[in-house]
């Protein structure tokens, strides 16, 4: 099966018939012999294959980095795909020059990914701040430099550029004149407009497919599985507009299934009504992963250690599933039946997630400890949503990941807390009860003993953070 796919690759329009399940990485390297994009791990953990994708919205193209090893070419339609080859000119551009001068490159294998990610930062931001800038490199691994040279190079570019929005140049114009981008970027929005016009009629009506493997962001399904997916004729839903909305309905915030983690973070609705959700997603994957991974993907994957799911349990979220037009709501605490087993029936698809806007008594904390802080899967993660009124706990939901076959709602510990006042012995007892509810195993992320101890510590951490005046550290740890 091959689909027509039209997009812009660097400075040229491409229309090709492709197996839609082919990864962008393989397409670039094998079909087009654009070998600047490297294969380092095929699981979105090294960033050597980072590319930028640009989306046209109201005449402005906005760019974001993604891992080309986890992205199907199906999702390229109508986009601007930027690879390292598209960031070259006759002489070096500023980022490249600084990387050379500051020793930001040694063996060179990871380097294109870094250059692309750094370029992405300037394409995404108008105000530059080095401390924040470095966050865009949370998905890029370098084994040679120790990152010191890369930081110097990045910092030099950040401190050299000053985008004055009053100058009436748009961001792309500014970056072109500042020696960050090649000139062809100026014409991309027009070209994308043309592609959109040319293909709008040819697009098939969106009938949501009920059978076969469904791929949304692909950040989990493509991990080490590209060969199988190539032959499995999956259905790609990440472009489904109906699944891509965040809205408020009564007291609930409804997040569409195909909303990505970054879209949640940047949603003003979320920032206003669910600020704790927005604040706690920095440790979810990496920027390129967050740009592709979707909320439904995180839920349906049913990983016992999923970050988003962990948070949603403490928010008492509900999952809206649909089959043949029939919808039903499943509370997330009832959603997981066993290891990688959910309450969804065959043919059902997650449509959205519904979260009730909490009251003003609501407090929330998220804790995650992994081997490495960034871009890592937790050894244990836990969230606590708690409503505290007149020194009494009136509502408590604590979740725990990595300590059971499913993302766990700590029911007994949560119930125990109801009606109680936060103080050391209550916290200790809640943690004690929590440890009776879990069944951790020893694996690559730690021993069972460690995970137990860690969960206890992280439950303490919830209370130390949310109730600094009610708990005494000395008596607790």
């Amino acid at each position, binding site marked *: 099966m091959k689909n027509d796919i039209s997009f812009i690759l660097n400075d040229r329009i491409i229309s090709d018939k492709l197996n839609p399940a082919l990864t962008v990485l393989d397409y670039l390297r094998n079909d087009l012999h654009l*070998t*600047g994009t490297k*294969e*380092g*791990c*095929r*699981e979105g*953990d*090294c960033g050597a294959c980072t590319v930028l994708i640009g989306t046209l919205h109201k005449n402005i193209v906005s760019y974001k980095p993604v891992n080309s090893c986890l992205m199907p070419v199906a999702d390229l339609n109508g986009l601007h795909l930027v*690879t*390292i*080859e598209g960031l*070259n000119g006759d002489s*070096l551009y500023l980022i490249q020059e600084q*990387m*050379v*001068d*500051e*020793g*930001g*490159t*040694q*063996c*060179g*294998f990871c*380097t*294109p990914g870094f*250059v692309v990610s750094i370029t992405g930062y300037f394409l995404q931001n108008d105000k530059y701040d080095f401390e924040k800038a470095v966050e865009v490199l*949370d998905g*890029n*691994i*370098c*084994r*040679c*430099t*120790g*990152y*010191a*040279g*890369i*930081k110097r190079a990045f910092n030099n570019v950040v401190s050299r550029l000053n985008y004055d929005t009053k100058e009436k140049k748009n961001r792309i114009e500014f970056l072109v004149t500042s020696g960050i981008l090649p000139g062809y970027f100026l014409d991309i929005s027009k070209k994308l407009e043309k592609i959109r016009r040319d293909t709008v009629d040819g697009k098939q009506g969106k009938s949501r497919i009920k059978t076969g493997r469904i791929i949304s962001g692909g950040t989990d399904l493509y991990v080490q599985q590209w*060969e199988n997916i190539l032959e499995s004729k999956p259905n790609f839903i990440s472009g489904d507009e109906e699944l891509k909305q965040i809205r408020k309905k009564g007291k609930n915030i409804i997040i569409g299934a195909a909303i990505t983690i970054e879209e949640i973070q940047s949603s003003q609705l979320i920032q206003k009504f669910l600020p704790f959700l927005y604040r706690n997603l920095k440790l979810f994957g990496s920027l390129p992963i967050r740009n592709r991974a979707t909320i439904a993907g995180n839920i349906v994957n049913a990983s016992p250690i999923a970050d988003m799911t962990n948070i949603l349990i403490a928010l008492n979220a509900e999952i809206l599933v649909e089959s043949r037009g029939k919808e039903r709501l499943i509370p997330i605490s009832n959603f997981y039946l066993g290891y990688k087993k959910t309450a969804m029936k065959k043919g059902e698809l997650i449509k959205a997630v519904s979260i009730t806007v909490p009251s003003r008594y609501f407090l929330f904390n998220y*804790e995650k*400890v992994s*081997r*490495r*802080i*960034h*871009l*890592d899967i937790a*050894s244990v993660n836990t969230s606590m949503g708690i409503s505290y009124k007149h020194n009494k706990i009136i509502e408590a939901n604590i979740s725990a990941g990595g300590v059971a076959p499913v993302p766990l709602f700590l029911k007994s510990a949560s119930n125990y807390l109801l009606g109680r006042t936060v103080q050391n012995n209550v916290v200790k007892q809640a943690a004690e009860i929590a440890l009776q509810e879990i069944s951790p195993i020893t694996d690559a*992320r*730690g021993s069972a003993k*460690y995970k137990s101890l*860690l969960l206890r*510590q992280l439950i*303490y*951490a919830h209370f*130390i953070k949310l109730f600094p005046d009610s708990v005494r550290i000395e008596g607790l*740890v």
Partner: protein
Amino acid sequence: MKSYDSIQHVKGESKFVDDILTPEGTLYGYVFYSPIAHGKIKEIDFSEALQVPGVLTIISASDIPGENQIGNVILDEELFASKEVHYIGQPIALVVAESKIQAHKGAKTIKIGIEELEPVFNPREAFERGNLIIPPRVFSLGNVNDAWKNCDYIIEGQTESGSQEHLYLETQGCFAYPTEGGGIKIVSSTQGATTVQKIASRVLNIPMHKIEVDVPRLGGGFGGKEDQATPWAVMTALASIKLNKPVKLILPRQEDMRVTGKRHPYSSDFKIGLNKEGKILAYEVVYYQNAGAAADLSTAILERTLFHSTNSYFIPNVKATAYCCRTNLPPFTAFRGFGGPQAMFVVESAIHKAANVMNVEPHFIQKKNLLNEGDEFPYGQLVENCHARQCFEVAETRYKLNNISKEIDEFNSSNVLVKKGLAVMPICFGISFTSTFMNQASALVHVYVDGSVGISTAAVEMGQGVNAKITSVASRVFSIDPLKIKIESTNTSRAANTSPTAASKGADLNGFATMDACNLILERLKKVAADELSVADAGTISIQDEFVCIDNKPTGLSWNKLIQQAYFKRVSLSAQAHHSTPGIFFDRDKSKGNAFAYHVYGTAIVEATVDCLRGIYEIDSVKVVHDLGKSLHQVTDRGQTEGGIVQGIGWITLEEIIYDSKGKLITDALSTYKIPDINFAPRNIEIHFLENIPNPYGPFQSKAIGEPPFMYGIGAFFAISNAMKAFRPAKTIKYNAPLTNEKVLMWLHSND
């Protein structure tokens, strides 16, 4: 000077093996590996695999025309397991197909019957059973037995140091195609072009001159491609010759992690004796090296462990014993430091434990025992051009060690849940291959008629910047713009009988060879210039900034013109030179000799912060004073230092290799094996290179840089440990690396 390689890298234009455009009809290989750690192969069935569409052939031991033997130091390793398997991941066959996917499918359908034998994974257990690859090695100085009675403190202990995955970003890979007359060209991602050539010759049963090995560049090596690039290259060549087609084999990341060797884990026992003043009088140590299933480079690595058993200290009485223990894990191999880090971790643990017992700062003991000029190493070499104390003292004052120490104490007394710790880490690393014969290299220099220069040496560029350094040498000898110089790929037809690019020696050996070759041409050019300019004494001629000078005064004769004149005068514009390190020798029977051309010294101050509630930590800063000699390329030297430090920190803290009870690697992907990322790397790395310290044993007074900085990372272990101890002062530290979050939390909050 912008290095040529860096410019290619930032544009994404550097060509690694997998980037080379392959001819149409190129076939792909996929390896079938042993699923069992130890056993006898009873039956193997390829029939179903051969039915997979696109699969052309499956190559195994019986297809080998020469010897089924890839051992380099000791002949104990088959290319394809024939009768027994010795580790999970041992190659048994190569499936060759028209596409990668087909080859993989073929490999998945191979059926094998193995009668399982009992495996051994622990080196001490292997030792108990007598599974040693070579007899025990011992280095000694003075007499420890007599010395103990003079000690006021005798402290004993055990240490563990973990393995480490190289995680070169470019996985192992090779591309090979047949050449006329039954020859083969092998494009390999290897640190040792000649090793591949030699072993391919043995396995294929064709002479070395029919095998051309070409190494464009490596996407990282770190030792992982010194010996272990060989099997992939040789099996690809074998398939290519058998099918008379180009064949490519690139290991997928997960497979590379599962089947290739890593840094050797060590389990060690120490006993250290000191007097009241903190002077170390005696040190006894026993290393149990986990060598894995085959010798690989383990014996040489074991030897370097012994060489570095006392790190940067003079200890008058030393007995160091090392066992090379054979286990059923993938053969462990070279990794930056080559056994040195493992040795240094033990002696630093011994000092740390002694300091805790004596209730003094470890750096008090460290400083007291630093090497001085004229001291004797346990292997008999005398300390020369020593900068151990100088580095230590400059670090102390430059970075205000006392102030840092005071600030940390204050911080710790006012914080309950967060603690800080500090450690000082001096290093001393010997530069030379400890197998003396390997200290040789060659260079072939061509000056083309347009004035551009092409240089081929034995050195492989893998990110360490050897090309930039060789460029620097040639540009200084000729006094021409570095942009006129290109360093060619490493190729066995242009540089024969090469040593692998390893032991931090690439720039030293190949730099000297390049210097010699360039000088041969320069002398000829001076004669041509003297002739052209009618100067009687060619000795007054020099080339400066691309112009011929007489008595240092520029003439109008430019480099380009001079080259053309030389060509028309039929003067050779090419030269080849060979260099071998003078004055080194080592007697393996006595374990004594001047094994090293020189030593590199330095001191790091490492600070860490531990969140004692969650058991997580950050390395705040690493501040270094390093003895570099005169830099050949500053961007490279700084980068090597910074990169080495972070890699060393990774090894001692974060990076954990875990096998299950059957010997299967659990941490076999980047999702489970974590290396430092940009957030984990210390926020602050400060490097100060000692100024005006020439080194007569390096080209233009330079010093080797590749490995030594790695060992600064060891300081992170002790900085974290000291912070932990501030939380639980009464508890004894365990010297068990890597110091993962799990170990930190368990130590802080449990009673075992």
